[in-house]
């Protein structure tokens, strides 16, 4: 992937205006520029790359269909990440159900014990992280996911979440507190 994490505001403004004028190529360029960061956010919110991919793809489709409603092209980033986080939130219930199903299936699956120990521990940890993330409240999940993204200042996180920077800090604090308890055995 050759997409840079930092996107110039002037570039994005130009691309958004072109997309609004019906230039599909410009929107493809937007996808290329934002797909990695959107996936990072969604994975941090859903704990699983496949679930995240579904949310990000839906997010891009929603953005594409509604791009003409965006009045200030320079604010695309916050607008788009809001779409992605909201889509991920609405997908959390289904993700929770699937995670529980996997957990039940694994408890009956004898083959699991035959896999290499390191892999098994890795998978186990991943599933534990996913279950823990899915237990956070919507705001906590959004805050902890956005907070850890490189080049995303706290003010921008607040703008995406539609709350104050202090509220973001509070949600991050509560999320960490909850995760500390839920992932206690893996943190020691």
């Amino acid at each position, binding site marked *: 992937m050759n997409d840079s994490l930092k996107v110039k505001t002037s570039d994005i403004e130009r691309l958004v205006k072109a997309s609004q004028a019906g230039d599909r190529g410009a929107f493809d360029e937007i996808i290329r520029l934002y797909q990695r960061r959107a996936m990072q956010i969604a994975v941090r919110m859903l704990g699983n790359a496949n679930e995240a*991919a579904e949310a990000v793809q839906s997010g*891009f489709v929603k953005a594409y269909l509604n791009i003409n409603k965006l009045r200030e092209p320079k604010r695309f980033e916050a607008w788009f990440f809001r779409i992605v986080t909201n889509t991920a939130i609405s997908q959390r219930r289904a993700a929770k159900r699937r995670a529980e199903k996997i957990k039940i299936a694994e408890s009956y699956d004898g083959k699991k014990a035959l896999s290499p120990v390191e892999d098994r521990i890795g998978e186990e940890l991943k599933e534990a992280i996913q279950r823990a993330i899915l237990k956070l409240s919507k705001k906590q999940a959004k805050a902890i996911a956005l907070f*850890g993204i490189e080049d995303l200042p706290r003010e921008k996180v607040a703008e995406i979440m539609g709350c104050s920077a202090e509220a973001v800090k509070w949600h991050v604090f509560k999320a960490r507190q909850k995760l500390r308890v839920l992932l206690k055995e893996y943190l020691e």
Partner: protein
Amino acid sequence: MACVQGKAKTKGITERVSGMKKSNEDIDLLLERNAAEQLDRFDWDEFGATISRRLNQAQQSKTSGIRFPTIFKIAAGFIAAAAIVFIAVMVKTDAPMTVRFDNGPGAVVKLVESKGSATVEILDSKGQDNQSSNRSSWIIIRTRESKVADNGQSRDEADFACLM
């Protein structure tokens, strides 16, 4: 003594804070590593192809969504107009009401015709006229009377008409 206690307290708080900081860092690191590991093995080409396909589908449905509403609006207009005309005709037409034949208790044949608020019943008696071999019948007309008719002079007229 108080100074020593104060220093110990400060040291405890500092340790707790640094412990919490460490714990926060550990959680952040865990989330970071989990995301990074999952995305390292992620198939970006397949992801890009799926988005492209979904955008094409969305674009197609958007285009057809723009083209079809006018057609749907015209069709819906026609259907609504036809429905209004149909209802108006039905209301205005003085078509006969449903006639229902019914076998009631004590009657061989009971014809019931309801029109407005009147009911007509024809009752065949079981007795037979020996000379003409015709059977006698009763016709009963039941009708709701208005309050005025119920108490006024027209009541007798209505009753008389019913008897006839």
